[in-house]
């Protein structure tokens, strides 16, 4: 009488769970039971199929590998940063509010001595009474600036330079360092005039100094009288 072999035992056999004696008993039973051998074979096939079915499970949706930044990532980040900075730098004028004096600003830096000037000023008296080189320089720079300014705003500006006291040196042929510059200004621009103070000239004459003025210069009786006259006609007065 051969002992019955259960399905559990067959399964345990193919899973390697039987010990020596149990295996021995199974082999004996297999010898003269082809049906049992067939069952065993089918179970083996099932086991092999299950393991084959999950050999390569479909990949997970989320990749498990952590994100790593390569050199190209850093390069790209750097380029984006540079691009952003460039856009910000070139776009700053576009985004900032319009300045009231911006056209002139673009043409030339506005001198400090003219900071009180209004944009719509058309007639300007520039007064100088000193022979300090810095002041003379400033005066002529202001004149240059105002002539530029008229080009920018598109309307002519009338300028009158009035010199008295030590400032008269600007217009004296023998002592002025700017003879050529003044001559050029007067030649190029009809709307600029140079006025010397007659009172100062008379005083210098009394002191024995021979005064010779530049040919562009007009002589007014007194500088103060001339200035007051201009102010009464709506001119703007600037003391250099």
């Amino acid at each position, binding site marked *: 009488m051969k002992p019955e072999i259960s*399905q*559990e035992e067959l*399964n*345990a056999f193919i*899973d390697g*769970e039987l010990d020596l004696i149990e295996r021995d008993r199974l082999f004996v039973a297999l010898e003269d039971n082809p049906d049992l051998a*067939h069952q065993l*074979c*089918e*179970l083996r*096939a*099932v*086991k092999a*199929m*299950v*393991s*084959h*079915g*999950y*050999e390569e*499970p*479909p*990949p*997970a*949706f*989320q990749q*498990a590998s952590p994100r790593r930044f390569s050199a190209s990532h850093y390069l790209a980040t750097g380029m984006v940063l540079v691009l952003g900075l460039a856009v910000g730098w070139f776009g700053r004028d576009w985004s900032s509010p319009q300045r009231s004096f911006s056209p002139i600003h673009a043409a030339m830096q506005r001198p400090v001595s003219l900071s009180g000037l209004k944009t719509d000023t058309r007639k300007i008296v520039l007064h100088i009474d000193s022979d300090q080189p810095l002041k003379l320089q400033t005066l002529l720079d202001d004149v240059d600036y105002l002539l530029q300014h008229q080009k920018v705003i598109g309307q002519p500006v009338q300028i009158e330079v009035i010199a008295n006291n030590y400032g008269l040196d600007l217009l004296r042929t023998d002592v002025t360092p700017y003879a050529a510059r003044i001559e050029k200004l007067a030649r190029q621009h009809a709307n600029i005039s140079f006025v010397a103070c007659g009172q100062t000239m008379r005083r210098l004459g009394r002191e024995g100094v021979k005064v010779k003025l530049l040919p562009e210069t007009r002589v007014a009786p007194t500088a103060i009288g001339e200035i007051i006259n201009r102010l009464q006609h709506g001119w703007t007065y600037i003391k250099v």
Partner: protein
Amino acid sequence: MRFLTLLAGDREIRAQLKERRSRLYRVAYSWCHDRTLADDLVQEALTRGLARLHQLRDPAQLDSWLFKILHNCWRDCFRCKKNNQDIEELEDYHYAHEDTPEHLHSRSQVVDRVRAAVALLPIGQRQVLTLIDLEEFSYNEVAEILEIPVGTVMSRLCRGRQSLKVKLIELAPQTKAGALRSVK
């Protein structure tokens, strides 16, 4: 972080975990047949495992210990999802197929049939079967992982294989059956 781990010198553990991860994923997928869920389960299991690493008494039992955690995650997942069917995710799963026709064609029909048959098994049988066939755990280990008696492991395995046999071999197309017979 990488720098720190280099200092700590536990590259080996990371490699082991990575290797375990793919195995855990394979089993989790065979349980739920849902890629996203399987990945979540594995992630959760590994997180719990790392947090409770000090509770592992015998390092040689790391495998069965991890699969036990995976089983617990799977059970917890059932508990919390019982009343909460996420239809959006379900739709995503149905419509977002990443399989290309090429890929589908190259994959053997057997794989699809096996997965479909396994998916139809009761959960208890499915777990026992996959732990034994995919991970080659012994009956005792499976009993410990699933916290059931060894006898239950054996009977579930027996019933599971029986129904798979019916679906995969006896009801298989003739050509498949012939091929199997020729192997025999």
